[in-house]
């Protein structure tokens, strides 16, 4: 465990942290992970932490949140207690392969049934040694360190996370559930790196949940690269439920080959600051990307979703739908871009962001935009920020439904647009329940978790 001494200059602190610990980092990591550190170092040194002067981060004042002292774990900490006893997912009937990740390090895998032949689910570091060819082909190939300081920072400190490999023509029938847990006795800086490779004509459903097990402050920089091979189908359901002091920066890079389909559904229930960056590149024709997101925030929480869908091939389809409900002094932002390249003819690309402000002090910034270089495409974008529909409120109340219940019905209906798209029925029911509780102002922590986070 190393402590960072804060000098007030985050970039300087991180650079010196890296310099002091390069040896430890590199000796504990596979060669492929180390190969990208030098470039990442230069990029981070040049870019630093994005400020509000960076267009993509204009409405997310990161500097304000990133101050403070955090410990860093440079080795997987052998944990004294049995994590499986401390944490039990409360949807046991979901029947998934469960991967536990502790403070960014792979901890365990429990298979619901033997994984199909050839499927690999293990720690990223372990995989980088075992599968050099796959890592050579895919690791850090999609997450461009030269464009975003936080991507560079993740690559700089990346040591572990989860690796999933689904070989061609293979269907992983049960979902793979990755549960990211944060547990420590001090504030902690966590770096997590995942790689998912779904080869031609394969299919996999990934559920990723974030939980904090302690009431410490966690600063997580998480990055996932997903390669969706030709005709592959990947579902990625994300549940963010962390304590209100935690800061979570989450990057997702999806690379899609022809005829593939990727569906991402992110539900942000709880967290101090959540920043989600989604990058999808439709590299092969006839591929499809669906990105959905719902965030519910109150108090002083901040949730920001940034999306860049890059149509690089013709005949592709993309859908973006992000919805937010903000109360109290919560702030949120949506910054979504559809980029249609010159040769990406016959593109269908849609983007929508709807938000409800429940208080006069909540704020939402939204910026949907299109950049189109092809001439035969169909694209749309739009955003709304408003209050609950007063006509609908009156209609419900005129039938005897109390004001509070009427508000709840309307908020729930608003949120259900996203939740309804979750592809695993049991997970959907559970999330419906969580969203319902969250909207009623009840704690949304999972029932079986003993820690009162949030």
């Amino acid at each position, binding site marked *: 465990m190393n402590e960072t001494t804060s000098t007030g200059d985050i970039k300087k602190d991180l650079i010196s942290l890296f310099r002091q610990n390069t040896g430890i980092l590199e000796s504990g990591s596979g060669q492929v992970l180390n190969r990208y550190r030098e470039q990442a170092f230069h990029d981070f040194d040049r870019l630093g932490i994005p400020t509000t002067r960076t267009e993509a981060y204009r409405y997310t004042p990161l500097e304000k949140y990133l101050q403070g002292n955090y410990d860093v774990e440079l080795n997987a900490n052998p944990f004294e207690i049995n994590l499986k006893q401390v944490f039990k997912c409360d949807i046991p009937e979901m029947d998934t392969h469960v991967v536990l990740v502790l403070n960014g390090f792979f901890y365990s895998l429990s298979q619901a049934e033997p994984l199909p032949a050839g499927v690999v689910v293990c720690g990223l570091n372990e995989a980088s040694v075992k599968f050099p060819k796959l890592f050579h082909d895919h690791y850090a190939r999609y997450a461009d360190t030269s464009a975003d300081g936080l991507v560079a920072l993740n690559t700089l400190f990346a040591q572990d996370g989860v690796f999933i490999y689904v070989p061609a023509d293979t269907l992983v029938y049960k979902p793979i559930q990755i549960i990211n847990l944060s547990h420590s006795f001090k504030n902690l800086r966590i770096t997590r790196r995942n790689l998912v490779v779904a080869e031609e004509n394969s299919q996999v459903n990934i559920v990723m949940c974030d939980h904090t097990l302690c009431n410490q402050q966690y600063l997580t920089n998480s990055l996932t690269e997903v390669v969706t091979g030709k005709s592959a189908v990947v579902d990625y359901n994300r549940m963010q439920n962390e304590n209100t002091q935690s800061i979570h920066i989450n990057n997702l890079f999806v690379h899609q080959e022809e005829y593939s389909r990727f569906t991402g559904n992110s539900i942000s229930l709880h967290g101090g600051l959540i920043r989600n960056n989604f990058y999808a590149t439709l590299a092969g024709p006839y591929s499809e990307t669906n990105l959905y997101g719902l965030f519910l925030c109150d108090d002083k929480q901040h949730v920001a979703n940034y999306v860049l869908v890059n149509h690089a091939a013709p005949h592709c389809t993309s859908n973006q739908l992000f919805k937010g409900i903000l109360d109290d002094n919560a702030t949120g932002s949506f910054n979504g871009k559809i980029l249609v390249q010159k040769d990406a003819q016959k593109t269908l690309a849609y983007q929508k962001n709807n938000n409800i402000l429940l208080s006069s002090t909540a704020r939402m910034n939204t910026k949907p935009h299109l950049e189109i270089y092809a001439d035969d495409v169909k694209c749309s974008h739009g955003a709304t920020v408003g209050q609950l529909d007063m006509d609908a409120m009156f*209609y*419900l*109340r005129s*039938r005897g439904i109390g004001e509070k219940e009427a508000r709840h019905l309307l908020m729930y209906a608003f949120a259900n647009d996203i939740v309804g798209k979750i592809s695993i029925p049991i997970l959907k029911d559970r999330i419906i329940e969580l969203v319902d509780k969250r909207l009623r102002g009840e704690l949304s922590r999972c029932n079986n978790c003993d820690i009162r986070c949030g």
Partner: protein
Amino acid sequence: MLQIKDLHVSISGKEILKGINLNVKAGEVHAIMGPNGSGKSTLAAALAGREIFEITQGSVTYMGENLLDMNPENRARKGLFLGFQYPVEIPGVSIVNFMKTAINEHRKFKGLEPISASDFLKMMRDKKELVGLTTNLANRSVNEGFSGGEKKRNEIFQMAMLEPLLAILDETDSGLDIDALKTVANGVNMLRRTDNATIIITHYQRLLEYIVPDYVHVLYKGRIVKSSGKELALELEEKGYDWIKDEA
């Protein structure tokens, strides 16, 4: 049942109703007619408790209580029902959930337990039949994607479900073809009892051929300028509203 005395109602500072007087007793059907913009819908919405309408003067007593002191939900729970001229579409709220919530809020108000799932389904089925609503309501959001006729039938269906004491039907007939009009009227007639009352707000006499009113009132420029028996409706149909305007 309902006594309206010298009711003045404004919206954004503009006075719409300028002293309405009306008495409705249990068992009666009143028709309120009048040209466009005379204040008919304002009266309906103000009685239901729509907050954008400001009551500047007058009183409304409903079942011996001051109606104007109650919020919209309590008015409804005490048996007041407004059939909307333009029923609101509420995407994402299923009709089943909506009606179940409403029924249970009414029951809670009366100190009753929530309705059982099987009783509720049976009730839905019976009332749908009563009002001739053939739309399959399962998995449908409130009024979303409904045709004009379906929306109006859905209003009468909700009325049948909630069994109000005083129903105010705001232009329920507008936009209905003759068959739909008959079913809607039939539903209203079936729900008529000696202990409830209906106020029908309409522009045309047509609906009154099927729901026979005890009284017809003509509202013009925010005042009731003429009240009479059902024959007044026929006279209005024949002569239009101009003679009333002249008289007023």
